[in-house]
């Protein structure tokens, strides 16, 4: 490994280094404020280093990591999202937990895991990255030890993630058995040379299970609402954004590098998964009264949308999915951010009744939330609209009419539950209808769960996210061009889907 190679690993070194520094710091002097600022410093340093290493890219680090502009873009996204989560967590933890400081170490390592994943070029780094991320997440999800549902969520996640990891390992083993290598590039060569057999395909299918689990795609999605609901709100934001971005970045790279678009059966699998995710997510969200669960279901549907464009293949698919991911991260951080800032000591602001008349109490927060929900619904002038538009145009370009039609139908369904939240927020309190039954069947206690005021940091994050949302929605040109430039290292290798396959699949 050359010096430049080492240098290009700087962002990862910084993340892991700061994780160690935080650990030592807590051992010496336990202080929430200090830990928080060190965390932010770590993220900032890591993010700043992205600009310096760009000059020496692309780099292949031994066989296991590839650091190119594509990886850089995903790193940037992940680190920024993690910093936002850190800021949101600060006030949330201050209210909730005695032992706050370790949380930041976990946040740091989880981020490191996600970053590793998005630059993986080998099964080893794939699995290592995934486990660094997952193990940190088990603890983060159940971080509020005195909250029963939090512990329950962590446990559920642990068991199911372990099961899915088993599938992943088994799948990798199968692929290794038939190709004799664990490097993405070599796998691709071997497949081209020797063709594909049922064993290899089963291996890929098993890997898809793990990927589907992490991305919460149907039918591997069932943990999502429970974990989203049980986890502390900022951790939910992290699970919804960073962990998915890391996994998706990896999978997109892997699929493009092995040129998975060659295999019709894999595409059929993804079509089924994508359609199932859209319907499952939206149908389940429809009559839901828990905002966190609604957002969980909505994220299932959104990943389903994402895979419609993923199916399209070629350059456009990479650009469209990456752009959509950016929009999705902005909105998800925004929505969970709002849940976070509104959450009180006893419980999170997750019942839809908590949002009744929010506009009349917190006009600004309600407006931001409205904008975020509009973006999720794909209403014009928001990032969500441009993202969805991009998805559809990529898919239409590859003649994926069936998934596109289903996407459109599902967008229509989804508007219902987004609008439901919005409508509730703009109702006046005095129009409250008689006590509403919640999911558990008991009467909702419309108690004072709300924090008296919103922290400066939380407000700042929300403001930035709202600006980004509108900016991307109104002037998408710059960011689209930026993404195009950044992903070109991958998209130049991408092959468009074979026309014969298109016809076979979707005629």
């Amino acid at each position: 490994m050359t010096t430049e190679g080492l240098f290009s690993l700087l962002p990862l070194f910084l993340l892991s280094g700061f994780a160690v520094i935080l650990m030592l710091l807590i051992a010496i002097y336990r202080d929430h404020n200090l830990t928080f600022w060190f965390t932010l410093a770590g993220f900032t340093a890591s993010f700043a280093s992205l600009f310096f290493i760009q000059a020496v890219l692309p780099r292949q680090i031994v066989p296991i990591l590839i650091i190119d502009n594509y990886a850089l873009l995903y790193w940037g996204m992940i680190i920024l999202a993690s910093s936002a989560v850190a800021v949101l967590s600060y006030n949330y933890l201050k209210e909730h937990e005695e032992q706050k400081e370790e949380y930041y170490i976990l946040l740091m390592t989880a981020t490191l895991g996600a970053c590793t994943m998005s630059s993986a070029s080998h099964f080893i780094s794939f699995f290592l990255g995934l486990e660094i991320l997952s193990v940190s997440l088990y603890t983060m999800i159940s971080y509020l030890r005195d909250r029963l549902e939090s512990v329950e969520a962590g446990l559920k996640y642990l068991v199911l993630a372990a099961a899915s990891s088993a599938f992943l390992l088994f799948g990798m083993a199968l692929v290794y058995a038939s190709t004799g290598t664990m490097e993405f590039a070599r796998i691709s060569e071997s497949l081209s040379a020797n063709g594909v057999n049922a064993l290899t395909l089963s291996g890929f299918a098993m890997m898809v299970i793990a990927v589907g689990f992490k991305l919460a795609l149907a039918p591997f999605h069932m943990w999502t609402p429970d974990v989203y609901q049980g986890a502390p709100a900022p951790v939910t934001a992290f699970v919804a954004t960073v962990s998915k971005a890391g996994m998706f970045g990896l999978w997109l790279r892997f699929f493009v590098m092995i040129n998975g678009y060659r295999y019709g059966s894999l595409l059929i699998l993804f079509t089924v998964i994508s359609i199932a995710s859209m319907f499952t997510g939206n149908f389940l969200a429809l009559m839901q009264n828990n905002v966190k669960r609604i957002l969980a279901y909505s994220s299932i549907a959104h990943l389903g949308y994402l895979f419609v464009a993923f199916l399209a293949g070629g350059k456009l698919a990479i650009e469209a999915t990456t752009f959509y991911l950016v929009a999705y991260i902005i909105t998800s951080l925004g929505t969970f951010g709002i849940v976070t800032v509104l959450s009180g000591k006893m419980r999170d602001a997750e019942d839809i009744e908590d949002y009744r008349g929010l506009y009349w109490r917190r006009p600004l927060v309600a407006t931001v939330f409205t904008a975020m929900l509009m973006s999720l619904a794909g209403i014009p002038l928001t990032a969500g609209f441009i993202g969805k538009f991009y998805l559809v145009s990529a898919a239409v370009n590859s003649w994926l009419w069936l998934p596109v039609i289903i996407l459109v139908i599902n967008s229509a369904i989804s508007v219902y539950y987004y609008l439901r939240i919005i409508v509730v927020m703009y109702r006046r309190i005095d129009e409250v209808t008689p006590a509403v039954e919640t999911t558990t069947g008991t009467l909702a206690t419309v108690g004072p769960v709300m924090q008296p005021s919103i922290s400066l940091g939380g407000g700042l994050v929300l403001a930035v996210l709202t600006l980004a949302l509108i900016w991307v929605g109104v002037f998408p040109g710059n960011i689209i061009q930026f993404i195009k430039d950044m992903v070109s290292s991958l998209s130049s290798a991408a092959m468009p889907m074979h026309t014969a396959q298109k016809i076979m699949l979707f005629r």
Partner: protein
Amino acid sequence: MLELLWMVPALPFLGYIILALFGGRMTKGISAAVGVGMLGLSALITIVIAISFIASPPEGYLFLQTLWKWVDVAGFSPAIALRLDPVSLVFIFIITFVGFLIHLYSVQYMEEEDSTWYARFFAYMNLFVGAMLMLVLADNLLLLYLGWEGVGLCSYLLIGYWYKDPANGAAARKAFIVTRVGDTAMAIGLFILVMAFRTLNIQEILRHVPLVWPVSSQAVVITALMLLGGAVGKSAQLPLQTWLPDAMAGPTPVSALIHAATMVTAGVYLIARMHVIFLQAPEVMTIVGIIGALTLIIAGFSAITQFDIKKVLAYSTISQIGYMFLALGVGAWSAAVFHFMIHAFFKALLFLGAGAVIYALHHEQNMFKMGGVKNMLPLTFWTFVIGSASLAALPLVTGGFYSKDLILYLAFTGEHGSKLLYFAGLFGALITAVYTSRMVFLTFYGHEKTHLHNRPGPVMEVPLIILAVLSTIGGFIELPGTLGHFPLFSNFIQNILPSPGSGEGHEGIGTELMLQIVAAVVAIGGVFIGYLLYYKKPETVQNFKQTPSGQSLYKFWLYGWGFDWVYDTLFVKPIDWIAQVNKSDVIDLIYTAIAWLTRGFNRMFSFTQTGRLRWYAMGIAFGAIVAITIVVFL
């Protein structure tokens, strides 16, 4: 000075915005000052522009002012641009100046309304004028259409101004829906133009039409017919004239504005503006002429039977616009515009005069309950008589004579003219004179039947005087060959619109003189008939009305030749019936079913979310089986 052009439509819009935003908190005085002031300024600027335009005409008698590009997508880039040429200059002059007088008059006429309603009135009026200015100044048809629709909207708002009476709301809806029929036709015409020329710029379309579409080709005929449809709707011509009499439900100044300055003349403007298309489609030109001729006669007969003074005027407007259409149909473009101008003067005068009477007699509109107003309101009487003389086209001293005579003369001698149309016009002139004199005699002569309630003040009287002067001297800017030949107006307009190609050379001055004498005799004869029937021997008419045939004829004319009845039977009732039958909306069932189905799915899927870990693990296992099956066996 021409650079000030943008302010002409901008000021009324500004007035609208101010009144709409703050009108609720303004006193009546401020509202009136804003409403009238904006229009006054606009009129002032128009006059300045007119002077500088006439003194030093821009190249090609055309001044373009591009304000900004609206959108620029795939080669379609309509600009927000204004276009000033002799035709639009005449129109903006009438719109702002007459509009200003009407606004001024309204200050007193509407004083009984409370301040919010008062502000609302002026806001709509300003918007109305602004939209109409947009319409006539637009340099492309898209912008013109915006003004066109804006005018339609404002007419709806103003006709239904007193919306607390459901009848007024119905009248407003009727106006909106009937004109909407024409608007749709016009929109289709615009679509055809866009498809054919990839632009809506008026100048470019006019330049390309003769090159691309041969005379009488299918495309040009259809386009012309569609544009005519729009014009017929807005200008209340056959067969879409039924909304205008009902539009009298609005306050009288609104009627004056609709009839004189805005709205109904839009159709005339559209045809004059797009004349090249019509010249390429001579069949449609003929249809325009025939529509005009039929309308002017039918409306004339209806006017004779009305008892509401405003309805007389409404039918007379339909009839007078019929003259303009007739002129357009025979290619007498400048004559049409000339008649538009003179008509604007005297029709505004008549409406405002009628309004003064109505105001004075405490909202009495029935002429048979008026009588003897002559002595009560001498100034109103004299100005009203001047306006009526112009309407009846009494020879030499009235503007109406010169403008109507020009139309008749060109119908007789013009290149596209026809003797039949001429005689129709002549016959219409007779009827016009009859109903005009009937209106004057019934309203102002005889003995008093209603007592004086209010007295119009100077803000109502000054506009009357100015308009009376204008409707008299307005005619002198266009003197026919027999009277010194002073065609100032025609020359001005013909810089931009083609001359009718009349045969002054081969017809000779003798024909012209003869035609004028005939027209003069007909007008005077008509007035005399009116004098006989409605002043000297009113019992003749009464007796005739009592006979069964007289009774039915009276009813037939009174209700506008049964058009309303026909439309009611053909369109309104069936649709009402369908709505009645389909109360629970069959089509809605589809959506209800979808919602029901979706909820069902929701319930079904909810069963999967048990919260049990083993079940979730099962889900993953199930997914694994499905995935591997798909991959291996497909």
